């Protein structure tokens, strides 16, 4: 069952996507509501159950993916819900509470995920490794077409697709790209990117999206307005204008570092590798930061003894819920720090694979 897998990196952490040296992943999300039913925040329990039944029937019947797993979130343990949050399949908000809600996810690739009864009846998302927004959009748009062939979505000619929060109406689309920007941070240029994004009315968020801090130099950039601009205009803008410019800045910063401040770059990278291969206690954020620098070391050719795929996998496996899943038991924070260090050491020395099988 895919939500419980810890033996593989999630789609978005698979190495080797387009522009993968800077872009970790691309995500396109559509917000949709069934016509004639109140939005989840105003729905009575029986209406929420109706929404779930409706969603399950249509999602499983209309062939949005070759195999879709249906996950009733009320049937999961809090740890399993946390695993889904860490895999970016559901939001933190969706992982909590006891109201009827679910996740439908394509199995085993996890590229398509549909949250049911979150802020809107349906939140459909498609994820891709690297910069591949058009590809992600095609999948989520196809899923939308298939669902819409069997059901009516709330829609108004003026406001487009109707959503619980008026900030999502219109296309209901959110396009977001997760970027790894250690070069810009080391060069002290991050603020420029933030300002540029702000000027274009784009949101800049941390690794876990809304409300999260930027950890390990990972940032998500996404659109905020959804009314008055078509899906294709927005995608075009993002994929061919906004994101390539950020990629260019980051690559330039890395180039400058390795040409003019080689010793600083090497120092940062090797310290990080030292931490990863020798620490006996590792906090989540500390591991993320060291893995981020190791990633920088790999893509700049500063180190070659570690594979990018391995680092990506560790970014996920060192998260608290995944760590506990890997070891198969609940652990307090102190134990997690020690076992996290153990996992990272054995994984980087090539012995970790046995544990994960």
């Amino acid at each position, binding site marked *: 069952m895919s939500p419980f897998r810890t033996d593989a990196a999630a789609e978005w952490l698979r190495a080797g996507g387009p522009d993968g040296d800077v872009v970790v992943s691309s995500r396109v999300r559509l917000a949709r509501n069934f016509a004639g039913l109140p*939005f989840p925040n105003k729905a009575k329990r029986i209406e929420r159950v109706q929404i779930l039944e409706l969603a399950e029937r249509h999602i499983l019947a209309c062939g949005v993916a070759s195999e879709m797993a249906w996950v009733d979130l009320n049937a999961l343990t809090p740890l399993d819900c946390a695993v889904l949050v860490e895999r970016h399949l559901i939001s933190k908000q969706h992982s909590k509470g006891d109201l009827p809600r679910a996740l439908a996810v394509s199995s085993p690739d996890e590229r398509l995920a549909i949250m049911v009864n979150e802020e809107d009846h349906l939140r459909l998302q498609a994820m891709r490794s690297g910069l591949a927004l058009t590809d992600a959009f095609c999948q989520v748009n196809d899923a939308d077409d298939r669902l819409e062939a069997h059901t009516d979505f709330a829609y108004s000619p003026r406001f487009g697709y*109707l959503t619980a929060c008026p900030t999502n109406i219109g296309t209901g689309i959110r396009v977001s790209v997760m970027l790894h920007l250690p070069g810009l941070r080391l060069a002290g240029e991050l603020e420029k990117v933030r300002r540029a994004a702000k000027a274009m009315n784009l949101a800049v968020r941390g690794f876990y999206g809304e409300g999260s801090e930027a950890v390990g130099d990972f940032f998500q950039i996404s659109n905020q307005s959804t*009314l008055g601009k078509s899906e294709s205009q927005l995608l075009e803008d993002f994929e061919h204008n906004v994101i390539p410019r950020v990629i260019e800045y980051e690559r330039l910063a890395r180039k400058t570092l390795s040409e003019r401040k080689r010793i600083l770059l090497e120092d940062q990278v090797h310290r990080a590798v030292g931490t990863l291969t020798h620490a006996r206690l590792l906090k989540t954020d500390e591991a993320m930061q060291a893995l981020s620098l190791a990633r920088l070391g790999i893509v700049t050719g500063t180190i070659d003894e570690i594979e990018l795929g391995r680092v990506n996998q560790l970014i996920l496996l060192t998260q608290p819920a995944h760590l506990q899943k890997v070891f198969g038991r609940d652990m307090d924070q102190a134990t997690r720090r020690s076992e996290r260090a153990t996992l990272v050491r054995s994984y980087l020395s090539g012995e970790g694979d046995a544990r994960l099988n």
Partner: protein
Amino acid sequence: MAKKMRCEGCTRKPVATEVTVKNGEKVEISYCDQCVGELGIGVKSHAPINELISKVVISQATGGGQQGTQVLACESCGMTFAAFRKSGLLGCSECYVAFESQLGPLIERAHEGGTHHVGKIPGRAGPSYDRQERLAGLRRQLTDAISAEQFERAASLRDQIRAFEDGDIDEVDG
């Protein structure tokens, strides 16, 4: 001197100040509650971005000071405009009709001046509310039937809804 502090991002009243060094000089930059969250500076923001935007939308609405809005409510789901101002979330698609004149300016502000939808139109029912209204009626009846434990009626309504969704019938008598 007594220079009025303005938010760096939008000229609203600032709530937080960040001190940075620019060209060797100490510079103070202020941000309002919206921008500080978006820029992730100064204070930790755990509020979802939607909530922040909604707050602007809400403060805008409050700024109008219309007392009549207090009792404004959506007939379909019972959501009041006052409750929307608090949560930033509407109760159902009919709320967009019930609060259309209040929402218009707020929506325009939240969407960089966008006032009308451009982009994908659902193929089956896009341009008309008719289908949606009829479907809403049927679904309300279904909810009532389930609540009243009228299971036979509920089953029949469920069949009607499915037939309606599959396009087998155009007219459904309530």
